[in-house]
């Protein structure tokens, strides 16, 4: 097990993404042209649950309108990392964080006051589908309503459009007023994706979105991800390495709170640079 410092060093010298100009961008530096592709820039991120460190010096860039996959064994910190990106960890008492996360060059911890507006820009889909105990329509409309949209016609339009975008419209258009709980597991998860999309986030975080679903529903979700990346930056946590290989452009491997390596998905799965990564993707542990 390499030490913290060694890993940081290794990341800084060996991972090509970090050596691009954006790596030394600072908040004051103008020019989106430099950072054009880098939607999210994470630097030296440490994360603590009531004093216990869960993430160690994570530094990475997430490219706009690509799918970024996080893989690693249970407890490696990939979900924790995902939840730092929309500050959902804020809801857990006793957590703290060091380092910086910038989205579009703005530090989302130090640079903004309104967490809820961040979360409308960075949507989230959870592992277990968690629709509200409301109608299908109201589930999708919820995000619009809490963001102050009252125009009924506009809401109805957005709901329809979003459900179409999530490939769910044909299945639910005749029962929009039915309870969301009446849908199947896969449909519920697509409803949750639609619900997240309704507020038009730029980034969509997905925490093992298909882990509780059957293969057919999983395939539908993966198709959807491929469609969504045309307009959204997607960060997905997955246990399923085939899934990471199928849907993602870039993959990061997390282990015990460290990011061991990250890079082009095809390369990471065929020619990983680190032994640990190779052991994991070849199924020697995890």
């Amino acid at each position: 097990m390499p030490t913290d410092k060694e890993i940081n060093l290794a990341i800084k010298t060996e991972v090509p993404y970090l050596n691009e100009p954006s790596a030394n961008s600072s908040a004051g530096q103008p020019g989106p042209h430099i950072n054009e592709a880098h939607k999210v820039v994470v630097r030296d991120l440490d994360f603590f649950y009531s004093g216990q460190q869960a993430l160690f010096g994570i530094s990475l860039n997430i490219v706009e309108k690509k799918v970024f996959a996080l893989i690693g064994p249970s407890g490696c910190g990939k979900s924790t990392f995902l939840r730092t990106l929309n500050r959902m960890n804020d809801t857990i008492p006793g957590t703290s964080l060091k380092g910086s996360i910038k989205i579009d060059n703005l530090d989302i911890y130090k640079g903004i006051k309104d967490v809820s507006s961040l979360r409308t820009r960075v949507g989230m889909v959870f592992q277990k589908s968690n629709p509200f105990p409301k109608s299908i329509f109201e589930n999708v409309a919820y995000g619009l309503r809490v963001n102050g949209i009252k125009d009924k016609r506009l809401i109805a339009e957005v709901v329809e459009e979003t459900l179409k975008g999530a490939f769910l419209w044909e299945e639910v258009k005749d029962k929009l007023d039915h309870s969301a709980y009446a849908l199947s597991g896969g449909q519920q998860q697509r409803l949750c994706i639609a619900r997240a999309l309704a507020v038009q986030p730029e980034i969509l975080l997905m925490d093992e979105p298909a882990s509780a679903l059957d293969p057919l529903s999983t395939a539908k979700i993966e198709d959807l991800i491929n469609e969504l990346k045309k307009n959204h930056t997607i960060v997905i946590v997955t246990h399923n390495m085939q899934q990471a290989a199928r849907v993602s452009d870039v993959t990061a491997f997390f282990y015990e709170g460290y990011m061991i390596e990250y890079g082009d998905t095809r390369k990471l799965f065929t020619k990983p640079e680190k032994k640990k990564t190779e052991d994991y993707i070849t199924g020697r542990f995890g």
Partner: protein
Amino acid sequence: MTGIQLSPVKESSPRHNIHESFGRKSSGRIPAGLTATAVIIIAMMLFIILGNIVLNGVGVIDWKFLSHPPENGMEGGGIFPAIFGTVALVLLMTIAVVPVGVLTAIYLHEYTSPHSKVTRLIRMAINNLAGVPSIVFGLFGLGFFIGFVGNGIDTLFYADEGPVWGQPAIIWASLTLSVLTLPVVIVATEEALRTIPREIKDASLALGATKLQTIIKVVIPNSLPGILTGAILAISRGAGEVAPIMFTGAAYYLPYLPQKLNDQFMELGYHIYVMATQSPDIEATKPILYGTVLVLLLLTFMLNFSAIIIRSKMRSKNAH
């Protein structure tokens, strides 16, 4: 982070468990017998009490009994003012106790960390409040609501009149009852808040809802059945209490119904107490007494029942 993982199955010895259950099996009959006996005793008690009341009371109840005031020094007539007073008292109490109780529960559950000193202190206070004898609440109501609040209002606004608010009245009785039933509402509401899955709250927050919006749009609607349970329990408790209202507003006999918040009122429980202890001719009032007890039971039952129906309707609307 939970996923299916192929981990080596632990060799926890199944044999050991079997031996343990052998040991338990032999002693199963005695506890079952004891618990069944306890149930039978309770059921018999209930049956005797209810049977006695129903048999003796049902003949007294007719339309006149329900719709007329008492006559001939309680030996005749009906109990309408007491029914009216009880319903009014309980409704006022509910209006006062439910919002305060629900807000307290929300504060405790959503805004404080469960292990902080303040939270533990508040919880301790609530538990102690639930353990205070009801007569003490009566004295508290007399001292605080009538003596302090009521008299205070009188000296400030009605200085040149007689007592307007500084006297026993339905408002003070219902407020006293609401203090008494506050713990019930708080505990039931907290119970309901606890059942709301974290995932649903997270989903709301992740959509950009603020904490307050999440509470108003997700937490409260989904805990309404639980809140109603609290209200039901509070009503059952409140409608049966006599001690807290004895000093704070219940009247022996009133020729009129309460019209204003500072009027006195008649109440079924207190009426029963009065007829059983203060009547000059106990034998003459006995049938009326039975009838009144039966009406009180039915009224409490009806209040409960309607709340249960509302609750189950809400449940079916909310969930599946």
